[in-house]
């Protein structure tokens, strides 16, 4: 075949398609070449390969210099050596030089143990830092969700690529020159003064401790240690299919039962499930969706379509910043996390006779932006937020490790009732397409008054960045759009804004793959197959559930009967709906 290239890597003869890099060719036969700046999300069209870190250099026979394997394409007859003494010495020098301007505070670094630079230093056997000289000194920048500690930046620019190319948020850029060069914001402003949407994908991408989430484990441990407080926890769907990775389990392992046991061991008084609130979200959002679509079909010109999902805090920040002309388009339904908080601190607290001030609601989220969301003023009552602290999946894993809990040997246990009961529709909230599929299951039955035979809507699933599907509501075609990753969201929204395409409903999630690929999930270090496995695990979890439609959750029915009244009714509006703000004053250019 003329488009195939034959070459030799470490004595293995192989053929790969033209255009393949040495790195990819080596990987295809199981040879791992270390990388640092290289970051690729397979299938998502995102690749950062500036070829600048030089960690992936290899020796090619006939070439005078070592070449970066991430950047160099294979050629016919090429003979590559990936681990010669010359190569190893060069990699050691490269890492040594990187460390010469890197604070050696690994003992207390948030990335300790997960740091790619630390791993390289270990793998290459560095025992001292040979080069000494000037060190970078930058002020730490702390936003409600993200910490930037640029003294640790190694200028790999992965964050810049995801911020600009994947998320099209454009907050980060390489700035200054020479020794002063660093990844920064426009005019070196603080993140809070930029249009940062706090999606946190820069944190997920950062190989070192330069970008990390705000650590709330100490706050939560303090609350757990306070006997006066009732501390309850809710867990997002995507956490249960990723947490196991932090304990050496296979990506996509479903650890729901172990997670519940671990949370009890940590001392949470009640272990509840955000999935319960996801079912509640479907009741509210589904009702709103049906109302808008029905009125639209009846010719009501005041109705704005499509209705858009509003569960994702990164996405909410995104439209508030970049699409202020469309603030009335997304559903007003709060996210499941905030709905949970609102119900826990009213209905549930009243039932148990607990004062709002003595109740601490913690959420475990696959997300970094949730830390910001629970601090939004509109979710506070006299300064007390409906959700006190939001921890990432990684932070939960850390806490489990602090307490010496052997996670993989834990027995399964069940969530507490009533706020822990949920359906299969709720668990797929963590996957791109899942929220709209869950809404479709309920909206279909409410609209057609017919029983849905098959609950799966396969046409809404998948990992393509922008997807469209038409679902037949018993003769009424409902046109649905789905996007994950904010760059994809922008493509879809621009079509809506220009009127090029008309959708009835749109689901958007800020992170690639949806919450399973969230910024608070275990670091995947650019291995997107992990995200795909988590996603598949959520659909397996859904299939294993006895009830798979939100409106059939008996505890949701009870909640409406005892407390809320009607979906989208007066009380529901007060507690479960929100409003949005124009934040476009921070946006220049995009």
């Amino acid at each position: 075949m003329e488009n195939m290239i034959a070459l030799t890597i470490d004595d293995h003869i192989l053929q790969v398609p033209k255009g393949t890099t040495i790195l990819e060719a080596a990987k295809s036969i199981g040879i791992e070449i270390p990388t640092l700046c290289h970051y690729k999300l397979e299938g998502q069209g995102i690749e950062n390969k500036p070829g600048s870190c030089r960690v992936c250099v290899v020796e090619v026979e006939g070439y005078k210099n070592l070449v970066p394997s991430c950047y160099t394409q294979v050629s016919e007859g090429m003979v590559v050596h990936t681990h010669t003494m010359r190569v190893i010495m060069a990699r050691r020098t490269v890492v040594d030089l990187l460390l010469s301007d890197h604070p050696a505070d690994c003992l207390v670094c948030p990335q300790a143990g997960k740091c790619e630079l630390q791993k390289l230093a270990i793998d290459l056997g560095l025992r001292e830092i040979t080069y000494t000289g000037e060190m970078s000194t930058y002020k730490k920048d702390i936003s409600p969700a993200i910490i930037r500690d640029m003294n640790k930046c190694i200028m790999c620019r992965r964050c810049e690529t995801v911020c600009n190319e994947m998320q099209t948020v454009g907050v980060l850029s390489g700035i200054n020159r020479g020794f002063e060069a660093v990844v920064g914001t426009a005019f070196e402003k603080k993140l809070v003064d930029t249009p940062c949407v706090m999606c946190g994908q820069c944190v997920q991408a950062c190989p070192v401790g330069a970008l990390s989430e705000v650590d709330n484990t100490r706050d939560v441990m303090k609350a757990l240690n306070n006997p006066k407080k009732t501390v309850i926890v809710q867990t997002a769907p995507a956490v249960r299919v990723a947490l196991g990775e932090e304990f050496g389990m296979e990506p996509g392992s479903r650890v729901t039962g172990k997670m519940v046991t671990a949370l009890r061991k940590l001392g949470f008084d009640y272990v509840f499930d955000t999935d319960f609130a996801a079912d509640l979200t479907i009741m509210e959002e589904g009702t709103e969706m049906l109302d808008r679509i029905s009125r639209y079909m009846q010719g009501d010109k005041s109705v704005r379509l499509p209705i858009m999902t509003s569960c994702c805090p990164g996405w909410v920040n995104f439209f508030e910043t970049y699409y202020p002309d469309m603030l009335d388009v997304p559903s007003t339904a709060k996210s499941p996390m905030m709905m949970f908080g609102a119900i826990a601190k009213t209905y549930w607290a009243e039932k148990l006779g607990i004062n709002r001030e003595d109740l601490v609601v913690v959420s475990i989220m696959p997300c970094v932006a949730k830390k910001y969301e629970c601090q939004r003023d509109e979710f506070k009552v006299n300064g007390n937020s409906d959700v006190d602290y939001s921890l990432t999946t990684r932070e939960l894993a850390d806490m489990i490790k602090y307490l010496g809990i052997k996670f993989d040997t834990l027995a399964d246990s069940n969530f507490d009732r009533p706020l822990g009961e949920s359906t299969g529709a709720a668990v797929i909230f963590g996957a791109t397409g899942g929220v709209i599929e869950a809404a479709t299951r309920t909206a279909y039955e409410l609209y057609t008054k017919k029983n849905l035979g098959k609950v799966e809507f396969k046409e809404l699933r998948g990992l393509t960045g922008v997807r469209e599907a038409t679902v037949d509501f018993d003769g009424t075609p409902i046109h649905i759009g789905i996007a994950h990753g904010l760059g994809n969201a922008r493509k879809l929204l621009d079509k809506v804004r220009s009127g090029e395409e008309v959708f009835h409903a749109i689901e958007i999630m800020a992170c690639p793959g949806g919450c399973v690929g969230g910024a608070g999930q275990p670091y995947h270090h650019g291995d997107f197959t992990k995200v795909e496995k988590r996603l598949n695990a959520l659909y397996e979890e859904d299939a294993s559930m006895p009830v798979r439609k939100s409106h059939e959750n008996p505890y949701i029915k009870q909640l409406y009967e005892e407390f809320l009244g009607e979906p989208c009714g007066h009380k529901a509006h007060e507690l479960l709906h929100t409003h949005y703000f124009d934040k476009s004053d921070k946006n220049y250019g995009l």
Partner: protein
Amino acid sequence: MCKFELNDTHKQTIIDVCEANGNSAANIIHVLHGVQGKLGYLPAEVQEFVAMQLHMPVAKVYGIVSFYSFFTMTPKGKYPIDVCLGTACHVRGSDKILDEFKRQLGIGEGQTTADGRFSLNTLRCVGACGLAPVVTVGEKVYGRLTTSQVAGIIAEYANA
């Protein structure tokens, strides 16, 4: 220094320069060059407006402005002094010339005197290595300088 206020004339200038460059983000360097030529410098407000015109992130615009030493975010003086630190000038002692300008003007590199008359910057080679060490004031070139000539140059413009 007082904050730069972007008025309609400034905006029109930027719009014109962007249009002349096809309103294309790919031409950002040409645009910034043109705008700085017209406005003298590139304060944050100008960069933000350029970003909006070209539909590109302002962080990227700032990335370029902060990278190239030609671009400046502080207004240059009426008489911009540039001291060449290229190889030839360097070996013939241009650093001493620079120090002398700093001392006499009481400003550092990249700064402007309080009266707005002089600004002091360095550059790498003006293509007149035969005249090293070289200093330019505006368009005028001074060659084969010694530190004792610095006062004379400043005096030339002090009342101009």
